[in-house]
């Protein structure tokens, strides 16, 4: 693999970044080529190709981090960025750049058939398959928007500690949103498979099937009753519990949130803070998963971190800065959206692991409540753990059976309380890709879980 920057220039930039006396200097350089297309209202539009490139130079002196980036990759621009970082990160350290040691990946996510080599016409034809299948699913389908996005990102990360890491990441995402209408009611359905993979991703997720799934969700919700409001038992379908775990709990386990004393989990490692049925992990080694990589964006190898083990809090998610701040090893969770951002601790593929109970039994054992099959986005206040989630597909549970769809439900509660209130964990499992936003940076993640039951939680709805 030809590096994004040559070795001599890289060494010179790091020397320049250290020249103010910084303890640590790093350069992150990338080039990302992407293709996208959208099919909206039956028309193919927004067929586009893009080339993004840039480099960020980071210098750390004590607790001060300086960062300068540019999308000019010539020697002058990079040395100017390094000088700017050096001026802000002043210290007394006298450090030189060691010889680089090339790090070999322990886990590869090589694509079967890279999307970059596939003609635009073939990609557009897949979008048409999504559209056709969604529209033929039911006469109520009013609108279909299908989007394609693939990219190949070449990264180089080198540091004053002699780190030299290169990685090529191939990503592909196919998304569809369907609007269905009946009478005056409109409802939406969504599906969006994605992977750190090539077009072989479509073997597991045939475009027609993707279109039908989104259409089915929209049409089903048309028949819904307004969701009930108040406290009740909530059974969360497979994958949905992963969103809950990610938002309500995962963000509070990211070391920057803890370091800023803004997490309820601070200083509580070793305590039993969740139901003993809950074991949760973050795993960036999962083959070809949307949130995976060989190295994180600071060059640390991909890893699996157990966050909760049988309800006991066992791990936090670290990047390099916070690991060194806390005297802990990095867990390989330093990620950034692009060269334009500093790395921060982020989740990758976060899951609650399956338990032993048949998921059908969980529902049968629930007298009344809400079945949250698919969760929409959510928001959490990490300082308190309070969260709210939209439920994009919900049903009433009446006498141990999933009955009518329920519209407009959301789940509101507190991360710690909810994890304690989990009283059943299914033996099934599923996961969903998504984009997690934090500090203005979006990174690809997946969230996974089995079917879960929360004994009691607040449901917000309009049905009183």
């Amino acid at each position, binding site marked *: 693999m030809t590096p994004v920057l040559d070795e001599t220039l890289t060494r010179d930039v790091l020397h320049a970044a250290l020249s103010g006396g910084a303890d640590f200097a790093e350069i992150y350089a990338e080039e990302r080529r992407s293709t996208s297309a959208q099919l909206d*209202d*039956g*028309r*193919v*539009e*927004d*067929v*586009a*190709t*893009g*080339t*993004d*490139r*840039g480099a960020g130079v980071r210098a750390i002196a004590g607790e*001060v981090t*300086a*960062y*300068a*980036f*540019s*999308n*000019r*990759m010539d020697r002058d621009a990079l040395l100017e960025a390094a000088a*700017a970082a050096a001026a*802000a990160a002043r210290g007394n350290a006298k450090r030189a750049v060691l010889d680089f040691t090339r790090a070999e990946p322990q886990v590869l996510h090589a694509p079967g058939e890279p999307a970059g080599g596939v003609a*635009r016409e073939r990609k*557009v034809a897949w979008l048409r398959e999504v559209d056709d299948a969604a529209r033929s699913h039911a006469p109520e389908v009013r609108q279909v*928007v299908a989007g394609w996005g693939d990219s190949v990102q070449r990264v180089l990360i080198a540091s004053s500690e002699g780190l030299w890491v290169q990685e090529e990441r191939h990503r592909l995402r196919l998304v569809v949103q369907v*609007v269905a209408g009946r009478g005056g*009611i*409109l409802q*939406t359905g969504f599906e969006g498979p994605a992977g750190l993979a090539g077009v072989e991703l479509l073997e597991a997720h045939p475009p027609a099937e993707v279109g039908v799934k989104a259409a089915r969700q929209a049409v089903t919700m048309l028949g819904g009753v307004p*969701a009930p*409001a*108040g*406290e009740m038992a909530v059974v969360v379908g497979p994958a949905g519990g992963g969103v809950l775990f990610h938002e309500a709990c995962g963000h509070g386990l990211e070391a920057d949130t803890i370091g*800023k004393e*803004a997490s309820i989990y601070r200083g509580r490692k070793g305590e039993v803070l969740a139901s003993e049925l809950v074991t949760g992990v973050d795993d960036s080694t999962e083959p070809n998963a949307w949130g995976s990589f060989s190295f994180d964006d600071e060059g640390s190898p991909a890893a699996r971190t157990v966050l909760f083990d049988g309800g006991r809090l066992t791990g936090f998610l670290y990047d390099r800065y916070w690991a060194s701040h806390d005297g802990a090893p990095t867990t390989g969770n330093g990620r950034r959206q692009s060269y*334009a951002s*500093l790395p921060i601790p982020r989740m990758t593929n976060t899951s609650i692991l399956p338990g032993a109970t048949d998921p059908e039994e969980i529902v049968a054992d629930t007298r009344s409540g809400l079945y949250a099959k698919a969760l929409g*986005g*959510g*928001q959490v*206040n990490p*300082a*308190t753990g*309070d*969260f*709210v989630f*939209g439920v994009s597909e919900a049903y009433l549970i009446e006498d141990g059976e999933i009955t009518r769809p329920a*519209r*407009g439900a*959301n789940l*509101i509660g*507190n991360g710690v309380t909810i994890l304690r209130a989990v009283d059943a964990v299914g033996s099934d499992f599923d996961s969903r890709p998504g984009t997690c936003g934090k500090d203005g940076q979006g990174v690809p993640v997946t969230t996974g879980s089995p079917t879960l039951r929360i004994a009691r939680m*607040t449901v*917000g*709805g*309009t049905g*009183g």
Partner: protein
Amino acid sequence: MAELEELVGAAVDAAEGGEDVEAYASSSRRTEVKARRGKVDSLSGSQTRGLGVRVIREGRLGYAWAADPSTDEAAALVAAARESSAAASPDEANVLPEAAPAEPLDGLYRAALVEMDAERKVEIAIELERAAVSSRPEVTKVEDAIYADAATRVVVASSRGVSAAYERTDCWCMVMALAERGDETQSGFSFALAREPGELDLEGAAAEAAERGARLLGGRKPKTERLPVVLDPWAAASFLGVLVGALSAEEVQKGRSLFADLVGEEVATELITIVDDGRLPGGPGAQPFDDEGVPTGRTPLIDTGTLRGFLHNTATAHRAGASSTGNAGRPGYRGVPGVSPHNLLIEPGPDGPEALLASAGRAVYVQEVTGVHSGANPVSGEFSVGAAGLRVEGGALEEPLREMTIASTLQEMLRAVTSVGSDLRFRGGSVGAPTLLLAEMSVAGA
């Protein structure tokens, strides 16, 4: 390094017969400083630029973009966009605007921001944090105290004769204060925006963040009931943000607007007037021309409760047989223009927020809504969101309330407004609102 004018020139020159080419180039210099515990925590500086090219051939549109291209690469982008156009569907609305001169906007660019050195910016962030932790005893630290600024230059040119450029400066500060009592922590957020650092109200933002956090301490879940709701300007703007899509002609034409077919009808109480003003002095989204070179203006959308029209770019206007309202908006050089507001706002009313509270009687004051993005359906208008705030008794703010949900529809909400405050404020984006008093809504808690 080529000037932006040279890059767009090289692209437009590469146009072949029978096609239209538009080139959009932008460059920006940004600084961001975070303070923590009286010191600089991080400082980030950047210089970026790029070029995006639209090629329209036989009604088919293709797009290509690159960060920091050379003039040769600029011409190559035209070829790539041409290839992409071949895979797209023809659409007669794929047209470029004709050239029209835009009046410059005075004061959009301030040399004072560009000339300020990084050390002074670091001091601003530190001052902001210090002000936040010294304004209330319950607040001894912040989660974030940030100063950031940007100087941006935009150049647009096309084979239709468009040739326009502007420069702007923006700065903002943001503080998330942490208020503590016992083992409870609450966070309070505030920010301020300005064109140059000297005009930022640091003290005001810091004190407000501390106050907003501290007053939530000891909050409890309320009982579920129906009662009047007072939305503070940011909470009101959060809801208005969901309506942005519904007021876009693009969403209307694609059947995704709850306002489609309602032009001329009453969609809100007569107290509600919503406009988008691209030339509002001091408005965060002010710009002399939109992202395809069309001059901006003031567009009435809802006038004393009656829906008057929608926001248009050149393509949506072509489809509707209307004129562009100068609302083409694009994600910088990385994407094609869609429709977006500049400064979308609810016109303020005559009374201050205190007067609204006084007339509310027994009510809930909402200072924070969460999950608006996921909890509100912009197509059906249904929403159910999380909220935090305070109880209102006899016109005064009383005990804090948390873990509430408010559920209704956006349509009902617009009809439920019984009073509009005078205190218009912009949220981070380009949406602004004053305090609103709403008739009874369902507030769910325990």
